[in-house]
């Protein structure tokens, strides 16, 4: 018999809320260049911080139907010039969740990943969806 685990919507909501609500109050997303670390517990080394977009006090709305939407992000001016390749969601100074940045087939899609210092960097929406 094939492997076929299924999780209820209620349980998926619980998991998403537990994982992401830690960003409430002090959440942000930071955009970096370089190689994405192996995981969110691996320290950032030579990667350069390009921009920081603060999240709203309620960083993520309550999950529903196994999906959770982020609140508004504050647009910011880039603090360095480079090519954006990955991001990290932060709870204050603690990195929580990493993902890829690009112009297609990535976790965070920008119109351009070539960021010049001072550029306007905006995150216009983010959704986390847990598979059934």
């Amino acid at each position, binding site marked *: 018999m094939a492997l076929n685990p299924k999780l209820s919507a209620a349980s998926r909501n619980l998991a998403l809320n537990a994982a992401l609500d830690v960003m409430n109050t002090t959440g942000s997303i930071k955009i970096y260049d370089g190689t994405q670390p192996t995981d969110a517990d691996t320290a950032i080394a030579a990667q350069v911080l390009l921009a920081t977009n603060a999240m709203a006090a309620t960083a993520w709305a309550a999950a529903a139907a196994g999906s959770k939407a982020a609140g508004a*992000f504050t647009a*910011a001016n880039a603090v360095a010039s480079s090519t954006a390749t990955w991001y990290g969601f932060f709870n204050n100074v603690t990195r929580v969740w990493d*993902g890829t940045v690009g112009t297609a087939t990535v976790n965070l899609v920008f*119109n351009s990943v070539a960021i010049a210092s001072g*550029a*306007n960097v905006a995150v216009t*929406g983010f959704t986390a*969806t*847990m*598979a059934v």
Partner: protein
Amino acid sequence: MAKGYVFRGQGLGVVTDKVYLQWPSKSDFDEVMQRELSLHGFSINGDEVAVTKRWIRVQEVELVGLQDVLDAEPAPGQLNEFVYGELDEASLREILAGPREPTGATPLIEMNGTGSVTNPGEPGYNPDL
């Protein structure tokens, strides 16, 4: 009680287990071996295989009992027959259907975001966000 035989392809790590209800034939050997060789860029009918002849010999004797496969690593070079008790024919048929492939392409949680970058000099640029 049923009896089965497992050919375990062991190149760079365990790659393939294939179970046979009957003692595998030469063509069975060849089929599994070719699958294994293909992973290393060789053809079983190619001249290059001569280079790996020793390796092939080792593979050929790595027939182990099903219980060995399930419970422990087989002793290299041993040729074991095993009569297993609790495994019924339906279970064996399931194993015969092939290894279970994880559906790793689907991440546990998908993260999808959108954003924009407006560099200095581009329309709509704001230097004082």
